[in-house]
């Protein structure tokens, strides 16, 4: 049994490797410079993600939001009832959170706002914001932070970001909106959505089983 699965995987790997051999050398890249400039962007990836394939991106954000709704609903029956014993105070962690949180938020906003000019964009910016929130949760305790960041408000922010994204998609479709400003707005909305989703996952995981 062990040998059979090993041989099967080895055969698969060799087959794919043989197929890959014929892919090289790669043909020239089709020209993308004018197209990118026409979308009002410098980063071709941003031009594709937010321009040519905008609806694909919007619905993937919707898939992400659906997964987060699933996490929220599935973990609700497993919520802890008794309050958690607070973590011992760690001055190092609190200092690190104090010092790092500002730069993390600023860098995340920079990444989102300049995503159409250079590397970055809404997705890494949102993930970075989520990590920043987790750092804060580690320093203050997830329960306390969860009490301070009111979940209903966050939920409204999440759904609001989705509605705004879909409205922007309709605006592009029917009113012909285009340009760098639109990309900045879309990137910021995507970052908000991803950050709130990441926070939901981390917060619910932390408050249902174990502690941060």
């Amino acid at each position, binding site marked *: 049994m062990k040998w059979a699965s090993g041989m099967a995987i080895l055969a698969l790997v060799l087959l794919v490797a043989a197929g890959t051999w014929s892919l090289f050398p790669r043909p020239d890249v089709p020209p993308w410079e004018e197209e990118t400039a026409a979308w009002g962007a410098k*980063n071709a*990836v*941003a031009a594709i993600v937010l321009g040519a394939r905008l609806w694909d991106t919007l619905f993937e954000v919707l898939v992400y939001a659906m997964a987060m709704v699933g996490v929220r609903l599935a973990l609700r029956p497993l919520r802890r009832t008794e309050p958690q014993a607070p973590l011992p105070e760690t001055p190092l962690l609190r200092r690190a959170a104090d010092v790092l949180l500002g730069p993390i938020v600023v860098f995340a906003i920079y*990444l989102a706002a300049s995503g159409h000019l*250079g*590397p*970055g*964009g809404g*997705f*890494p910016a949102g*993930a*970075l914001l*989520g*990590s920043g929130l*987790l750092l804060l949760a580690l320093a203050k305790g997830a329960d306390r932070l969860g009490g301070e960041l009111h979940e209903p408000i966050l939920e409204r922010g999440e759904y609001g970001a989705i509605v705004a994204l879909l409205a922007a998609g309709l605006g592009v479709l029917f009113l012909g909106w285009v340009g760098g400003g639109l990309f900045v707005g879309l990137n910021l909305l995507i970052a908000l959505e991803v950050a709130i989703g*990441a926070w939901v*996952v*981390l917060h619910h*995981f*932390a408050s249902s*089983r*174990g*502690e*941060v």
Partner: protein
Amino acid sequence: MGTVLLSVLTLALAVFALTQRRLLWGVIGVGVHSLALAGVYLFLAAPDVALTEAAIGFGLVTFVYLLALRRTGRLVVAASEAYPILYQEGERIVGLEWEILSRFGRSLHRDVEVLWVPRSEIPRLLASAEVDLAAGGFLPRDGEAALLSSPLVPTRLVTVRTGEGPLGAVAGDRGQDHLPPDAPTYEDHEALVRALARGEIGGAVVDLLRARQWFLAGHLRDAEMTPVEDSLAFRFAVAASETETYAALERFLHDFSATGELARSLEEHLS
């Protein structure tokens, strides 16, 4: 060239992560592997993908795994075989301590995994937190840095003398404390009783449970038994860093003996 070197490093990290025994190290290894993978993307002129992978694959994914692991990991137990209380019957593990351990694992929602090791290995494994618990007729020695549970099975140390010659003991066992430093030691009780049967040593310092088992198995015909140390007990030892597990174990054992189930299990396994 840089790409090739980084590729080799990435693959090595992935192999390292996926061949670990402990899930925690696997998760951390996969996290570091993701960071190296982000470096490879950077070398392949894909800065957007590299940023996203570093922020999500390295940051969020590792956090989510760690949070899920907090309470759902494995309970790794190092043990040496001790016939009526923790031993293997074919593929299965049975005995009094196994009954307690598997129920304790259920109460924590963790699978219990037993590593069979010689007694002398146990302090090192506990100190490095490679295992969470030690069991299997564990008699604590002085100076072992571990958290000891409440007593499970009362026992005592005895000297069994079958003939002339030096006394032997199991390496790292408590019996060794009662012997001169140059006394012969053996890896486990199996080896000790074989040496005893061959007449290499004239006797041994062991706990009463093993002595009784040897006697029943016919290894000791006309042996002379003298008590060495009274009022000992088999306990579990918890790694010093696992204070939460220790507190949970103490609570569990308290309930287990308060409901009279400990006495019932003792009756069932040891009579």
